């Protein structure tokens, strides 16, 4: 645990942040939500050979129970509004991972009349995973990077916490404002 011998009670507050962040980072429950062929790689990452359960990543069938929205595939304009709705149905802190070229920027369908050019045009994204589709190792690496981000989160009204750090959203790497 945190062994900083700081007097004045700060040890307790910092430890709370640490424990909560630790709990969050090892129970990242993504929503079972595949949009295109990237979903196949996502399923492989859940399955035995790559075993996402090691990281506490266990797929949940409901956005109410999910922490992580894994956008695995092409975001069409017709699917854009349901994605925003699902995002708002998730409890905070919520994280979004854009998996694959399509979800990052439109990918090979950039010129299409039907595809949103990146899911970050409709919801904020924490982690971008490049690839078409990304290997499961890339997905695991992205989850580990997201865990590093989560470890920088802080609680409300503790030392150094911004609103963004509290809600676990976008600018987790930024300095406290």
């Amino acid at each position, binding site marked *: 645990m945190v062994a900083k011998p700081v007097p004045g009670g700060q040890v307790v507050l910092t430890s709370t942040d640490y424990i909560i962040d630790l709990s969050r980072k090892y129970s990242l429950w993504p929503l079972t939500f595949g949009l295109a062929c990237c979903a196949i790689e996502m399923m492989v990452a859940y399955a035995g050979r790559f075993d996402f359960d090691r990281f506490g990543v266990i797929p949940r069938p409901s956005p109410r129970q999910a922490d992580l929205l894994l956008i695995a595939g092409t975001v*069409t*304009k017709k699917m854009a509004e349901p994605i925003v709705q699902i995002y708002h149905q998730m409890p905070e802190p919520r994280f979004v991972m854009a998996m694959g070229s399509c979800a990052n920027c439109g990918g090979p369908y*950039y*010129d299409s*009349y*039907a595809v949103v*050019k990146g899911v970050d*045009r409709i919801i904020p994204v924490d982690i971008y995973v490049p690839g078409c589709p990304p290997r499961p190792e890339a997905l695991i690496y992205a989850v580990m990077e997201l865990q590093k981000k989560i470890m920088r989160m802080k609680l409300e009204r503790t030392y150094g916490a911004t609103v963004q750090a509290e809600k676990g959203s976008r600018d987790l790497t930024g300095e406290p404002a």
Partner: protein
Amino acid sequence: MSAGADFLDRLLAAVPGSQADTPVKDYPTVRLSAPKDLLPAARLLKDELGFDYLEMVTAVDWLGPVNLGGFVSNPNPNPFTQKHPGPPVSPVAGPGVTYRPVLDLLWSFGDLVKNRKVFLRLEVPRDRAEAPSLTGLFPAADWQEREAFDLFGIRFAGHPNLIKILTPDFLQGHPLRKDYVHAKDRYDAE
């Protein structure tokens, strides 16, 4: 596949004005002369000749010229690729096929018992793309015709619910038409 199968002769004899066309994927293909011939032909195929499975309703837009990417070369209507207009193309689509302002409708009927297939084709003008609906004979025609309406703008007379099925509600126009110009919508804003 023999183009002179007996069901083809019966179909050609029963539908005046129809003629055998270039086979599509080596299957017998019949070109109808007018939209009013479609329903009698489909009824004959279903009730007497055993083709009780409607496999596909689609169309081809023969407006040209187009390049290999499918975009009209000059001018290029695609707002995202205007810097790359593509190579110039000839006004001939292929051997014996010229570009013309028509939509070439295509119906595919299957016979699952005897493992046969037959295609019906019908040309309609692009500005008045209308055809009779087959939903009375084949319930499977419902969504197929909605898709053809959505992507090609073909009005199927008699369809009970002819609304968009694939594209979002705010998308204007019919994207698979060669002269489709994509208007930027809320998700294309820079």
